[in-house]
């Protein structure tokens, strides 16, 4: 199996670790070896938080810039900061409601490298569902609409169900589904 590299980023408190857990759990259920790297300690206090995830036969826990097939960003600037990680023809999903996303210069770069980029209103979805702190689940749900390799929407949904604590299970799935619905809608519009 070839190595799959993922980078998840955002700010302390946005639930990056939960997203990492969900994706790594999904990968392990698909029979992948999982390696990852997290931010802990002082850097966590309101600073940028980045989580690297590598699936396959690897020993290093950090992703080499330019080699991540997927980058999920829970905040726009953090998404930009981690742009160097995205591999050519890779995918970048960013939580943003800004109509100006992506920035013109960034767009030129994305086009040049054939990177697929989506601005996802994950925070708005989460707020609309009454759980402003769950933009991570909305983003994951949205991403799942176009996910098939190495894990599908069903794989991810199952994992959310498995790893959410009982008191949050229902809410988490609700936000995840709302994100998924939005992802499906936009997929249709894009095709049309």
């Amino acid at each position, binding site marked *: 199996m070839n*190595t799959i590299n993922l980078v998840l980023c955002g*700010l*302390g*408190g946005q639930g990056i670790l939960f997203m*990492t*857990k969900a994706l*790594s*759990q999904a990968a*392990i259920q698909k029979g*992948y*070896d*999982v*390696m*990852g*790297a*997290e*931010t*802990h*300690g*002082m*850097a*966590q*206090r*309101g*600073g*940028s938080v980045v989580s690297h995830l590598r699936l396959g036969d*690897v*020993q*290093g*826990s*950090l*992703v*080499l*810039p*330019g*080699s991540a097939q997927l980058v999920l960003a829970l905040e726009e*600037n953090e998404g*930009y*900061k981690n*742009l*160097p*990680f*995205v*591999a*050519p023809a890779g995918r970048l999903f960013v939580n943003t409601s800004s109509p100006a996303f992506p*920035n013109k*210069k*960034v767009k030129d*770069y994305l086009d*040049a*490298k054939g990177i697929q980029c989506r601005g996802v209103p994950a925070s708005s979805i989460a707020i609309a569902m009454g759980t*402003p*702190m769950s933009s991570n689940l909305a983003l994951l749900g949205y991403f799942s609409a176009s996910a098939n390799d190495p894990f599908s929407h069903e794989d991810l949904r199952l994992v959310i169900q498995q790893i959410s604590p009982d008191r949050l299970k229902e809410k988490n799935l609700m936000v995840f589904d709302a994100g998924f619905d939005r992802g499906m809608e936009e997929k249709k519009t894009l095709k049309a």
Partner: protein
Amino acid sequence: MERREILLGNGAIALGIVESGCQVVTAYPGTPSSEIIPEVVRFVKTGGFNTYVEWSTNEKVGLDTAFAASISGKRAACCMKQVGLNVAADSLMSCAYLGTVGGLVIISCDEPMPHSSATEQDTRSMAKFAKVPVLDPSTPQEAREMVGVAFSLSEEFRVPVILRPAVRVCHARQSITYGPMVEGGRKADFRKNPDRWAATPRFRLTLHAELNEKGIEIGKRFDRLSAHNFHDLKPGKQYPLGIIAGGVPYAVLRDILREEDRTDIPVLKLGAPYPFPESLTSDFLSACEKVLVVEETDAFIEYLIRDRHKVLGRLSGHIPREGELLPQVIHRKVSDVLSELGQQSLKEEESVMAMAVVKELGLPVRKPTLCPGCPHRAAFFAIRKALPKAIITSDIGCYTLGINMGAVDTILDMGAAITMAAGFYHSFEQDGVAQPIVSTIGDSTFFHSGTSGLLNAVYNGAKFILVIMDNLTTAMTGMQPTPALGIRADGSKGKAISLEKTVIGCGVEFMEVVDSYDLEKMNEVLKKASAYVNDPGGGIAVIIARHPCLIAYREKAIPEKKKVLITDDCVECNFCIEHFECPAIFQDQELGRTSINQQICSGCGVCLSVCPTGAIVEAA
């Protein structure tokens, strides 16, 4: 039954500890080592084992405790961050001489960059300083295996063994398979032998000779090819470039070379670098024209190679002398060396163009800050306001972030808030200058190494205000309990140590306890304390600023949430943003005015008394 689980590197280390039948585990929390103990507790509880696990009050205390277990015949481990080993160095140096009975493994976690540490020091150098073996894992799985190797070595050679995982092992996550574990069932059996266990200087020379002998024997062991010291040289072949690596850089390098299919570059991995495997290394050197040493956090292997005429590395300037060896750094440096030697370099980096695009965006750097509602912010604000001319000495913990508020002038080491305050006092007092000094220290740091400094300061007549910022937890490292809580590492009840009684016990005669959120009261007490310090009969005034940490205690930390708004009375003076620095108060670019981010506002209400024009108000 076998389990496959994604474990944090620290979890894998904990697994290694419990699997090895270790019966006594001690630690003081510190990034990146803090998660080892909670994971040990989890495995011990799952197995139903009778393992003794403690959060020690500091690293030296922890190592002394583990050492006693070792010489009672049991396996013992002591965990800490790299700078913690400095605190435990007194114990380490001596127990290396005395030797062990049951395996004694010291786990000291290094942190290049340094993300959350005072220094980028390399534990391998501390191991050499103490003349004890050190193992340097590349992955969580290898760290787990090396814990077992370390215990065996320690028992075979009767010497403490250090494992030094770096942050990218400690905070890596890896899928790991493990089976049922067996409890270490040894009974304590201390055999009196004063010539060894109570060795006076007369016997220390003999013990030193013994330790040197052990080092030679272990060096021979490390010279043999093993799972942790190996290379991929083909017999009889000569290479233009070879690479020696250990620890995390080895993992990075292995992935890069495999990804690019560079089987033309042989690698010597030294997972057991000290006592130095001299002949193994010299065999490798003989087969290569040049050898690049890629190691973290400092030049170590490179120094131990006696003949360095072929060697490139940190000393020759081919590898950066400081900072983390991230994959992109290793990729670039290896590529540069290959080009320099006229060899085919590595593939061009894909990210160079993106880096330039991102740089041009001029994105704001996000500094770590105190959380919204953090009680430390309130205390710092009060101190700055009441005593604007004070030198404020601080310490290691979340409150280090008071630096963003201009409320931290010095940080040295654990406990230095108090000892340095005394030093400042004596330096100014000598010149007849009454310099106001405020020392700020957290509750856990105070118990770690604040008391000895406070005793000294009281005894030697220093005069300053000491604010103990008591948030009822060890927050920065992940909410470990402090001795004042009376909760032990495994969650069981311990004896709670009263902070107040400890302060009084150190000879302090002025002590007040204030709720950190109460700015008015805090101001009043600071003024009173200042008067006491300046009184000819005064001394050290201690204020315990107490309020629970919001992350640890959540709702309990703020019983009545206040909804806060900024009214049109705001004159955009930026006072709150600059001096109170709450992440929930921000300059809204779209509205062009100072606003409250209701999503992250904790509702603590402390900011209500901060605004000079009274524009921060509670919503009706």
